[in-house]
């Protein structure tokens, strides 16, 4: 029975709990068993909170028995390790945080748990969310549940939310929290055949989420279906006075928008997203996506986002600059790991040299450099101007279209170790996703087909600021037309 329960969508699981077909405790135990069986091979979870999960499940069952069920009551979720969780080790998968255990709960997880969700554990990720393959984690990479046919080579689930994506794909939770600074929700979702949405900047509070790049970071869910992602986002989003960049707005009922008609919507196809070296299969899938939407009554409109080519360079200035400052607090003084030196300077140097991995160090160095006196104008200020141009490109485009359709990533999942030696190759993974972060726009990735090797490919829908509802509607239409149901064959 437990194997079946883990395969449910969030929506179906909540229905089952409502119908008393099973209890949250049974559902939770099924997931804990699945995690036990899979985690040695996949390394998706870095902390499993079995006791806490069972206690939360029991409490949810008790509420449901009294007829006081909450929107997510009893639904077991995985939590990306970037979220601070009260009493549960939270390290952003960095050695610099040691065994840091917060005394506080991030706003997003507090909202989910307030709505009754059950916490299964903390999910693996790239260190401080810096990476596109999950290989920078201090706990080792997550292994994707997907394989290229019978090839046993280990593939990446993508990053930085690789643990979240792998856990959802392998049915190790009903859904997961994730975060997206340059594509960290959408690229892993595309690589693992799952759905991930990065909402408009400011929808979800950043309070209690370990900061990478403050002006770009947004939390969002990774889930099995478009509707599941809408249900989760509704619980996660909402104004938080503790985050000055949180938007003081009501959160719409996103799930309602998922089945909404897309007839008459104008869908933009940006010509700049046709890049050299992109596999023909991805190009073909993109055209297929256009056809599906056309069939659903949309108008396909060719558009131009002329500053797209500057997005990646601008992103790799702005994000490291903010990170270099945000990560200054990991100095070994108050929490986390400290390596004592002969004097203060050496203690700083040793603590940070030993605590941060190579990719994080690389980005701190880049960020420190671009903010330095004499370079600030040439790099940071210029990148901010590019950012404004990119946002303006989108505003111009949304005069003509209602949403934009693009591929999510320029390739399917690649092998672990394949790109980790070449940061520029790795950074190119974000080429279609960073624009939405730079402009603060909502973007969703959903699986649309398998490539010839049997790996999932994703399409991305980018919407107007605050118009997640149209994004969900368009994604729902693509999901329905694609009829994507593939799951990784269980080998673990």
């Amino acid at each position, binding site marked *: 029975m437990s194997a079946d329960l883990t395969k449910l969508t969030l929506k179906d699981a909540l229905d089952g709990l409502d119908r008393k077909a099973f209890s949250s405790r049974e559902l939770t135990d099924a997931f804990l068993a699945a995690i036990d069986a899979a985690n040695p091979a996949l390394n998706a979870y870095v902390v499993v909170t079995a006791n806490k999960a069972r206690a939360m499940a029991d409490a949810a069952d008790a509420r449901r028995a009294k007829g006081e069920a909450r929107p997510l009551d009893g639904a077991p979720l995985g939590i990306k390790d970037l*979220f*601070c969780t009260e009493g549960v080790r*939270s390290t*952003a998968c960095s050695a610099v*945080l040691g065994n*840091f255990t*917060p*005394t*506080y709960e*991030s706003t997003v997880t507090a909202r989910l748990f307030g709505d009754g969700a059950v916490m299964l554990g903390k999910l693996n990720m790239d260190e401080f969310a810096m990476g596109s393959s999950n290989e920078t984690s201090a706990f080792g990479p997550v292994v994707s549940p997907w394989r290229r046919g019978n090839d046993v080579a280990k593939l990446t689930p993508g990053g930085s939310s690789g643990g979240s994506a792998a856990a959802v794909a392998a049915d190790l939770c009903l859904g997961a929290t994730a975060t997206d600074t340059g594509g960290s929700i959408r690229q892993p979702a595309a690589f693992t055949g799952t759905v991930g949405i990065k909402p408009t900047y400011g929808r979800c509070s*950043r*309070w*209690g*989420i*370990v*900061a990478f*790049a*403050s*002006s770009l970071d947004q939390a969002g869910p990774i889930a099995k279906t478009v509707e599941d992602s809408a249900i989760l986002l509704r619980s996660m989003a909402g104004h938080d*006075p*503790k*985050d*000055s*960049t949180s938007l003081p707005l009501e959160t719409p009922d996103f799930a309602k928008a998922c089945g909404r008609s897309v007839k008459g919507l104008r869908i933009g196809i940006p010509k700049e997203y046709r890049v050299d070296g992109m596999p023909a299969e991805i190009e073909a899938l993109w055209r297929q996506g256009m056809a599906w939407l056309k069939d659903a009554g949309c108008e396909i409109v060719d558009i131009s986002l002329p500053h797209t080519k500057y997005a990646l360079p601008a992103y790799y200035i702005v994000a490291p*600059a*903010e990170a*270099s*400052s945000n*990560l*200054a*607090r990991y*100095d070994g*003084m*108050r*929490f986390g790991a400290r390596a004592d030196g002969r004097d*203060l300077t050496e203690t*700083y140097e040793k603590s940070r040299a030993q605590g941060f991995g190579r990719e994080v160090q690389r980005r701190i160095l880049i960020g*420190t450099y671009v*903010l*330095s*006196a004499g370079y*600030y104008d040439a790099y*940071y200020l210029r990148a901010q101007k590019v950012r404004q141009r990119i946002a303006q490109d989108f505003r111009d485009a949304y005069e003509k279209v209602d949403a934009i359709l693009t591929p999510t990533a320029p390739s399917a999942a690649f092998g672990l170790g394949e790109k980790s030696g070449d940061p520029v190759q790795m950074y190119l993974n974000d080429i279609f996703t960073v624009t939405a972060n730079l402009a603060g726009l909502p973007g969703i990735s959903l699986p649309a087909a398998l490539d010839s090797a049997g790996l999932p490919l994703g399409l991305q829908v980018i919407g107007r600021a605050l118009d997640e509802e149209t994004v969900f509607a368009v994604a729902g239409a693509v999901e329905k037309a694609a009829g994507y149901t593939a799951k990784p064959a269980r080998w673990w």
Partner: protein
Amino acid sequence: MTALDVRTARKDQLIEGATGPWEVVIGMEVHAQVLSQSKLFSGASAAYGGAPNAHVSLVDAAMPGMLPVINRKCVEQAVRTGLGLNAQINLFSRFDRKNYFYPDLPQGYQISQYKEPIVGEGEIEVEVEGADPIIVRIERIHLEQDAGKSIHDLSPTETFVDLNRAGVALMEIVSRPDIRSAKEAAAYLTKLRAIVRALGTCDGNMDEGSMRADVNVSVRRPGEEFGTRCEIKNVNSMRFVAQAVEYEARRQIAILEEGGTIRQETRLFNATTGETRALRSKEDAPDYRYFPDPDLLPLVLDPAWVEAIRATLPELPDAKKKRFVEGYGLSAYDAGVLAGDAEAAAYYEEVAKGRDPKLAANWVTQELFGALNKLGRDLKDSPISAAQLGGLVALISDGTISGKIAKDVFAKMLETGEDPDVIVKREGLVQISDVGAIEAAIDALIAANADKVAEVREKPKAFGWWVGQAMKATGGKANPALVNEVLKKKLGV
């Protein structure tokens, strides 16, 4: 002369060196702690003192994922201060991060305002004893976080950190280089303190570190371009400011007169020796990598809100001084002394209410302040209340006692805290204004000293002796004006 260089020192302010006179040029950055319940970006208490690390929130300790949220009260206080300094209020301002590592700076950066401060240009008039007032222009005021405190002397091998102060709001008030002497520097700081105290935006307690100054000092030949400046950090009393300027100016002059050059550097003032010593040169200055704090939105103020704050401004020292001169007829100096201290001004106004304001001012500034000074007491601990001193002034004005007797009564009031009329009544000090009684006393005096009558007619200077004898005969209680009058008549002088 550049726009920055608008003042030339008076001749008497120049420092005479071995090779000729030098002019000192001073600009100041004053860090004033904002009076507020909680810190600039967190809800932790901003109160002074408290057990170490008792006033520390998760945000102050820079725990992972913590975010700053601006404290409206601190913004209001900065605006209020800007209005009090006749300065431009910037409706759009921004917070930046100043990045550096130190254990008492948990975030690894200080949130400050670098390019776009909340308050722009203003100016204040500064009274300097024995000279005409000067105008000191304000360049800007910005809001920023204070750091915590590193304590190095509790252990030979460890440093302790107290974060109570970390994140408390400071206003950095930056002046133009318009100050030309140590005395003016101290006077500027005194005036600034009077204004922020009157505004209620900073308590001005320098010994608690609520106000500290970074003093920029350079010297030049009169009329020439500005010299290279040195910044003396964290000077925390009026006296030290004057000492530091004096020492630093002479140090720079000595170097220049020996043919040397001044290195631009940051220096520390040693209060024990009165000297300054180099901390770091400009070349060693850290690169703070300022950039706009992405955790905070730009600060946008509603003009109506600013006007509402303006409407609640109290009367400031300058306006008060003007009122004291015009309304009470006080001298500019007395008015300045009283108006410069909100407490003194309030005390004075209570003494003067319904009484002779000039007489009241004399009694407050001369007798009372003199006595308190001798006792080493503050006005708030004065043994004589304003109502009591007012009573004494009233007794003088209505002729009940003479000014001379009043001084004795004042001495007794200081000692016992009793009301003046109680003392006057008990001791029988009421002035004799009965002409008959005075005439009788003087008649007796003349009868006893008939030989001296002729003398006073020839030597008018001897009249003083007669007055003294007449007062003595009446136990000092006779009305001096009447004594004069009667004596003149009777002696025929």
